[in-house]
């Protein structure tokens, strides 16, 4: 069923691509292999007139398959909005988002829901788990909702990696914050999604638990070839990524490859200085 949707979706996108071809350059075959998610000319505008705010102003970004990308920026820079638009939780005012080949900005609600279920994984800052379900039930929830059979081997691998094998029968209220976030990560990966979006996954955690969660995300990219896009404001967290995008006032300002905490901090200082000079 879900696989069917993917096919139909892909086909629809292909047809659309052909029809609207003049507007948007066709994605070449090499790119299709390597790009997991692509945002193109994204605008997100709130309000109108005096109170008009552009949370995103013409952002174009690609997120390669098997890569761990961090999005950084000060509060109100639009980084969460970008993540929500890329994940199909929010609709951009203008622009397009492609998950693989599929333009998700035009998908109806139901297909978008199924897309999130089958091809996207989520980790939020807090309240990630359904309190009535056990850790294991939470992990398999997207699969259960889709009515899909789980790949037991993959599931075992993921569970081994989060290191909570003995706590799977516990309810979220019986787990620590760090453990809860690791369970959330495992859930995000359980369906082998095209991409995992993490919105400040360590925002509520102490440094030790943060390190556990980030190490897990890092491993899932390095060892299992998953794609992760993470929003954070913590330079240390960003240093786990392969690449960091810097956002300010809704615009993409800078990019850093193979970051360290120091280089991230330096870039942020530079951006602050530029902003201060501009202001």
């Amino acid at each position, binding site marked *: 069923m879900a696989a069917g949707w993917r096919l139909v979706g892909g086909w629809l996108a292909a047809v659309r691509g052909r029809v609207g071809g003049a507007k948007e350059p066709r994605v070449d075959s090499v790119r299709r292999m390597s790009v997991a998610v692509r945002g193109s000319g994204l605008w997100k505008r709130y309000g109108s007139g005096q109170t008009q705010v552009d949370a995103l102003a013409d952002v174009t970004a690609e997120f390669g398959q098997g890569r761990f990308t961090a999005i950084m920026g000060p509060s109100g820079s639009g980084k969460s909005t970008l993540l929500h638009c890329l994940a199909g939780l929010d609709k951009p005012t203008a622009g397009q988002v492609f998950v693989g080949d599929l333009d998700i900005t035009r998908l109806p609600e139901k297909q978008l*829901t199924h897309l*999130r279920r089958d091809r996207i994984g989520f980790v*939020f800052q807090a309240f990630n788990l359904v309190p*009535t379900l056990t850790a294991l039930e939470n992990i398999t*929830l*997207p699969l259960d909702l889709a009515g899909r059979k789980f790949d037991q081997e993959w599931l075992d691998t993921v569970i081994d990696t989060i290191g909570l094998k003995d706590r799977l029968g516990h309810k979220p209220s019986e787990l620590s914050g760090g453990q809860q976030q690791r369970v959330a990560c495992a859930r995000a990966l359980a369906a082998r999604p095209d991409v995992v979006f993490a919105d400040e996954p360590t925002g509520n955690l102490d440094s030790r638990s943060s390190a556990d969660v980030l190490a897990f995300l890092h491993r899932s990219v390095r060892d299992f070839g998953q794609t992760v896009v993470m929003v954070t404001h913590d330079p240390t967290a960003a240093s786990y990524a392969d690449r960091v995008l810097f956002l300010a006032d809704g615009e993409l300002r800078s990019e850093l490859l193979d970051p360290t905490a120091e280089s991230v901090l330096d870039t942020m200082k530079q951006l602050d200085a530029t902003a201060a000079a501009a202001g």
Partner: protein
Amino acid sequence: MVRLGLRSVLAHRSRFVLCTVAVLLGTAFVGGAMVFTDTLSAALKKNFSGSTADITVTPVDPVGVRTGRPATLTSDTVQRIAAVPGVAGANPELLVRDVQILGADGKPTETYGLPTYGGAWPRDAATAPFRVLDGRPPWGGSQLALDQSTASREGYVVGDQVRVVTGTEAVTAELTAITSPPLSGPAAGAPLVTFDPATAQLLLLGEPGWTSVGVAVTAGSDPATVSQAITKSLGDNVQVRTADQVAAAGENALDDAFGGYSAVLVLFAGLALFVGAFLIVNTFAMLVVQRSRELAMLRAIGASRGQVTASVLVEGLVIGAIGSTLGLLLGIGVAAGIRFGYRRLDLSIPDVALQVHPGTVVACYLVGIVVTVAAAYPAARRAGRFPPMAALRDEVALPERSLLFRLAIGGFMLLMAVVLYLIGVRARGLTGAVLLAFAAAITLLGVVMTSPLVSRYAVRALMWPFGREAPVILGRRNAERNPRRTSATASALMIAVALISGLLVIAASAKASIERDITDAIGTSELVVSSDDPATFSPAVADRIGKVAGVESVHRVRQQQGKAGDRTVQVSGVSDGTLDGPITAKLDAGSLDGLGGGQALVPRTLAKTLDLSTGETFDLTTNTGRHGLTVAGILAPNRQLNAIVVSLPTYASIGGATTDSVLYVDAAPGASPAGAIRAELKDYPTIQVRDQQAYVASARGPVNVALGVIGMLLGLAILIAILGIVNTLALGVVERTREIGLLRAIGMDRPQLRRMLRVESIAICLLGALLGLAIGVVFAASVQRVMVDDGLSVLDVPVPQLLVAVLLAGAVGVLAALWPSRRAARLDVLRAIATE
């Protein structure tokens, strides 16, 4: 704090709507009942100002019942009253109920439940119980008078031929006069037919006699003094009342007559408020949890416990006041509707404005507000207990009182219920049934208290057949999540279903018992002849049936009521051979032989109550006084003859009328004379000739009426229970906004979300329905057990109907989930996730 409470109600308007509706329904029934009763009694009191006699003398009715031949005064008594000093005139009057006036089409006139009265034309218009409006007095057996509203309703004018059926005779006579309806006493406002006094005595009583004497006092005499003089002269087998006393007594009689309507309305009000209270308790509990942070913040900035509690109670007060106001208005509307209905029926109840007494207003507000505030109190008290620190913490740890206390109380209640049950089962008869009803009520409360303990497992077991798909598991877990809330929500439905299933079982058992008893009792007779309203008919009927071809024999049964000890009993006179033929009387002791010698058969229950055995003598009081009877035998329970049975001559000697109540007709072998008998009795339209099956069906009629009332109770109780479930689900959706957002974000689609909520709703409904069903059926079966000698000889559990009730509960669950799940499905995913 008051302002805070008001603001909170305004801010959470939609969450309080359902609470308000529950209060509204409850108070509407209270208000409606009171306004309707007040209006009716005001209307009828208007009538009593028309009572004209200064003093009224009536015979003391030793039995105190309304059916059968009334107690009478002789003409001799009238003479003696006239002779008392101060009496200007003593006018004997006759007023007998259970007469039928036929319309021009030959069918009985519709009286909308009022009995029709037959009376004697007054000798003196000044003291008559009604007024003459038009025409000349009727004379002899071929002339009569009708009351104005009956005449106009049926289109009769003076000069028309009118057919009337009385307890003794059916006659056709010319309408010569139009009167008002009876102005006073229990007959006030009822349809009335009058004849000249001699004819009236013959047609209505079958013998001479008067039912009252209207006395006019001489000018200057004090009615009270004269009334004492009359009492002195006649002794204490008459009742002497002045006009004032008659009016007061008449009002009491009216309250009795119309008390039934009020009682039903009050029953509805009680049920609505009781079930509604659960809804209110739940709503407040949930709202307080949702607002825990806000309330803790109040504590942090210096509000005392008491102030926080007060702010929540003010919310209860406001909702109670709003609900009561709307309920009162609705109640007045309901009463106006009933009054409008009555006016449309063209009954001669005088027209008065709707009576909204201050007492009604006070009662509505009192009931509405007290119930709401009391129901809000537990939540308010908890609100005061939030520690100020809770405001700062992310998730508020609720100071939940352990279930232990609840369980202890609930367990104690269940224990009490068991003890009561055991006593009840041992005490036979009505006492036992009442004890069992109490036990059932306490059990319900006990289960309400203890059910959180078991609800989790019960829900799991109930929802097992629904599969293990993710939405089902999530819905089920939501129902298990807060056992108290689930239990409280289910409790409302449980009480409703317990009540209804219990009544259903009792009604079905009553039906089955009637069927079996009649089948037993009808014996070998092919046909049963009886009459409704008047319940008796002329002995000529039996004579005429006896002459119809194909009829082998006719057995007469005559019935009246009497008193043995302080119990009202049925007394039956039967013709010879009746007990060996159409009625198979089973005797516990003694024999039928004594009947011919003036002895009596006594039913088992009565024999037990009076501690009688064969050969002993007991006193039976009838309209003609006390009569000693010797026990010939003890009757085993038998519906047709749950009465003291005597032979016809004995029956006459103890004051029984010479009119028949039931005839059993034996047909000659191979003959089927039903058609011929019906043709023969064409001029007696109230008489029904039925075969066995038709007779059973007619005996079941009252049970069917009872089932109708049960149906209405069901509707109301379920309506309020639905409100409760909708409320719980809707507030649950608000409470779990973030969780729903998360589920939607990770891929739950809208149908799955709706399904999740539907499952939760169905789980709650089935829990309530099955608990209620179990309690209702068990107690009803026990009631049948103890009433086995009192009319409920057979237990019948109407399984299909009960199954329908359970399915209905499931359907209610689906219905109740509609609105909350629509709301949940419409939630914006991003906002839901961001919700605090």
